[in-house]
């Protein structure tokens, strides 16, 4: 399907967040011991299966996997796939019950075979993460070894830093496209009227959710309105787009029946708290020099007299 030619197509939006993930006791111990080139697994006290990396619980029987073991760095390749980023394989380490998913390192992928013997290879500089175990390489002569009881374990790594960045292309569609095109090019704010309840809906939409009928005429709205509710933002948080303090406001433009979410500016936090802006205050858009086709084309709303 092609998009309506007169409107913009997509808005780029990124969600980017930092994390501190908790490994738990068993995986934390596994990660800590990679620095000593030891692979730690756990034996289930109830059903005797051995899993690697060590887990705090046994998926087979639901029991506590409460005995840590040192797993030999040797095993058998049971499956693999070749990707752009390298070869991913399932490695049945000697003495374990569940294969480990990891990288297989080889200059000649065509030589890989199910059942071939492999051994661990290690990163030069351990950082306390999975890739301290750099991967597995061919080891045709590696004898089959046994798991051993784990003694003198390092304290577990408690937290790992992680970052997630997700890029989106949100489609405007016809109604948002028409609205934001108008905002960008001619500073027009346009809603739609519901033919049944006669309310003007902003942002415009194909259906009135109160009447559940298709909406009708496009209606030009002024850039003045009434504050329905407002608060004074002091909190700072990751991903915040405006430096605090600022006034968060839900504004009903004159002639509209729905809320526009924005900020009220041109006053201090103290003025805002002492009533310079409050439910019922009349405000007017202060347009930016930016023309991005978003609500941020309005810098903020400013307080104006009731009958300006």
């Amino acid at each position, binding site marked *: 399907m092609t998009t309506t030619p007169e409107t913009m197509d997509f*808005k780029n*939006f990124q*969600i980017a*967040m*930092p*994390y*501190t*993930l*908790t490994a*738990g*006791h068993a995986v934390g111990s596994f990660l800590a011991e990679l620095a000593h080139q030891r692979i730690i697994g756990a034996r289930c006290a109830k059903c005797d299966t051995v899993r690697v990396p060590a887990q*705090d*619980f*046994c*998926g*087979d*029987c*639901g*029991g506590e996997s409460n005995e840590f073991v040192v797993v030999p760095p040797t095993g058998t390749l049971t499956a693999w796939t070749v990707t752009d980023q390298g070869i991913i394989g399932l490695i049945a380490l000697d003495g374990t019950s569940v294969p480990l998913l990891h990288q297989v390192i080889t200059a000649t992928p065509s030589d890989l075979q199910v059942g071939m013997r492999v051994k661990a290879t290690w990163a030069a500089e351990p950082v306390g993460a999975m890739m301290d175990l750099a991967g597995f390489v061919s080891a045709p002569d590696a004898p089959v070894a046994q798991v051993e009881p784990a003694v003198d374990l390092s304290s577990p790594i*408690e937290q790992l830093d*992680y970052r997630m960045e997700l890029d*989106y292309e*949100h489609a405007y569609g016809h109604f*948002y496209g028409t609205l*934001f095109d108008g905002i960008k090019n001619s500073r027009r704010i346009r809603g739609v009227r519901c033919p049944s*309840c006669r309310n003007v*809906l902003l*942002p415009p939409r194909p259906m*009135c959710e*109160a009447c559940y009928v298709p909406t009708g005429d496009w209606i030009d709205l002024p850039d003045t309105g009434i504050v*329905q*509710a*407002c*608060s*004074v*933002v*002091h*909190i700072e*948080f*990751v*991903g*915040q*787009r*405006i430096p605090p303090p600022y006034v*968060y406001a*839900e504004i009903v433009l004159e002639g509209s*029946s*729905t809320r*526009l*979410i*924005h*900020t009220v500016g041109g006053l201090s*936090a103290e003025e*805002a*708290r002492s009533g310079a802006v*409050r*439910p019922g205050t009349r405000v007017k858009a202060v347009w930016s020099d930016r023309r991005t086709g*978003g*609500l*941020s084309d309005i810098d903020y709303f400013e307080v104006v007299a009731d009958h300006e």
Partner: protein
Amino acid sequence: MTSIAIVGTGQTVHARRRVDVSQAGLAREAAIEALNDANLTMDDIDAVVVASGPAMFGSVNQPEKWLVDALGARYKPVVRVTSGGGTGLAGALQAINQIKAGLARRVLVVAYDKLSEGALQASISTLYDPFWGREFAVGIMGFSAAYWRARMDRLGHTEEAAAMVAVKNRKNAMLNPKAHVKKEVTVEEVLASKPLCWPIKVLDVPPISDGACAVILAAEGDAETITNTPAWIRGMAYYAEADNGPNRSMLQSEPLKTAAARVYRNAGVTNPRRQFDVAELQEPYTCFELSYYEGLGLCAEGEAAELIASGATQMTGDIPVNPSGGCMGANPIGATALIRLAEAAMQVTGKAGAHQIKGAELALVQAGGGWANLRGVAVVGSSKD
């Protein structure tokens, strides 16, 4: 229609940051406690409902697949339910529907969030339309503070009244062994605390917590054989609103009123203030508890400030609200709503320990997701009807 009861409950030790367990380990801890409480094992469980907040909180998508092994739930029906702050109650409702449909007789609901791991306000802000307001969002705090400000003018929900909620719930949390914030405050301290989104101040806000809760629901017939003290579900509903629909003042939560009306009808509640012995309400900010007094009919519109000032909702009052301390003691968001339900069950079965309301037989539960978008109500009783 089959009656359904809560036959076991469990909660983790909640904390600001649990560095000793993974997300899966946290959920497991609550599940084991609930199984022990009911004297059951996973072999006795027909189905599992996992309830947790947005995947963005913990960066693990479809965490239920991870929990299958942690719960020992392989080859059982496992589904995940998510609905913001109301997630836990939405999960319990899913379990009830499975039992009512005859698909299962004993269902384990496990709800959790490990909020120490991610960026809370930024995650919650993504509930805003990316075109319409997200760049100005402050989680739900900017919105919640704004409509509290509006309720001050129209309904008299003053900063002092909300501060009394903080004082009451933080005091009650002192008696709850599962609460991790245990510090009494005064009205003056709340009023003088640092503004986050004024009028919301630091002491109007619950802690950010790592925690999990589990509840086992069983059909009539099984329930009485599992325990001598089943907590019967007398009604439960969860409703949504038209968020950006026309002419919405947001002064009252419409889905809350709808859910309460339906549940009260099912449970035969005509005078909530008199009939309920205790209430567990999910108050992400103190101002919400005031609003819920009115939405749930514990007082008339505009009388919430009077109700809290009267002392009626204290432990010693005629309608104690949040003897557990509510969210002010611990707030692992995905688990919070299920904690309210578990606490209500503990109250009507006499298992609430130091924060027990003596002789409680009928308890009210409220939970919600989004800002005012999704609201759930449940009634739990010591008898079937």
